[in-house]
């Protein structure tokens, strides 16, 4: 007896992207990037630990245009993963499963993550 064939995931190359699928993969992508980003926190703490000179080098690195770009992207990734994470927690509680709610919460998460990023950089 042969094992029954298991169902396959949709083939991404012929699958039309939708808000729901794009936000879903973004949750993973930002999650992985944030995990890698924790190594940046580690670097920053060691820059403080090593004294004023190393700390000044780190500050210089972070305030260059490339450093800023990384930090802005990183903060958006954190805010996106956080707001979309709350969306996931609501689903875990059984809330917001109707198609209209899923789209409404999806757009809200995008807007909120952008607003939080703007707020963060306006006080920095």
């Amino acid at each position, binding site marked *: 007896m042969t094992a029954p064939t298991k169902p396959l995931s949709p083939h991404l190359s012929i699958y039309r992207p939708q808000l729901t699928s794009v936000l879903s993969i973004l949750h993973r992508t930002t999650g992985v990037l944030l*995990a890698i980003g924790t190594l940046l926190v580690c670097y920053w703490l060691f820059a*403080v630990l090593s004294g004023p000179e190393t700390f000044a080098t780190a500050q210089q690195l972070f305030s260059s245009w490339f450093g800023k770009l990384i930090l802005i992207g990183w903060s958006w990734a954190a*805010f996106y993963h956080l707001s979309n*994470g709350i969306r996931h*927690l609501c689903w875990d509680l059984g809330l917001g499963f109707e198609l209209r709610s899923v789209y409404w919460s999806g757009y809200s998460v995008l807007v909120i993550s952008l607003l939080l990023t703007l707020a963060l950089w306006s006080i920095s």
Partner: protein
Amino acid sequence: MSAVHHWKTQRRTAVLLIPLTLWLLFSVATLSSAGYLEVSAWISQPLTTLLLGLFILIAGHHAYLGIQVVLEDYVHEPLRNRVILLSRMVLGAAALLSLFAIYTITTGGA
């Protein structure tokens, strides 16, 4: 770790990380133009030391659980467990080094 325990821990750490992450990002943003002394003084405040330590432990754990799920989806069998173990070691080492750094800064420098 059982699947149910894994699932629950991922959610519990997520809930704890909501306030901790907002606190950390907005605190660091206000320190963006601060000098060395200001930053090390901030880290040495008892409340900061506590919350920063908690953030590192909980975020590290949450990151490990999430990375494990992603690796289980994309890495196939002969390598899977070794790659998961490697991710665990890297994240664990980063967390331990960060805690060591905070401890040393708080107790008066290297």
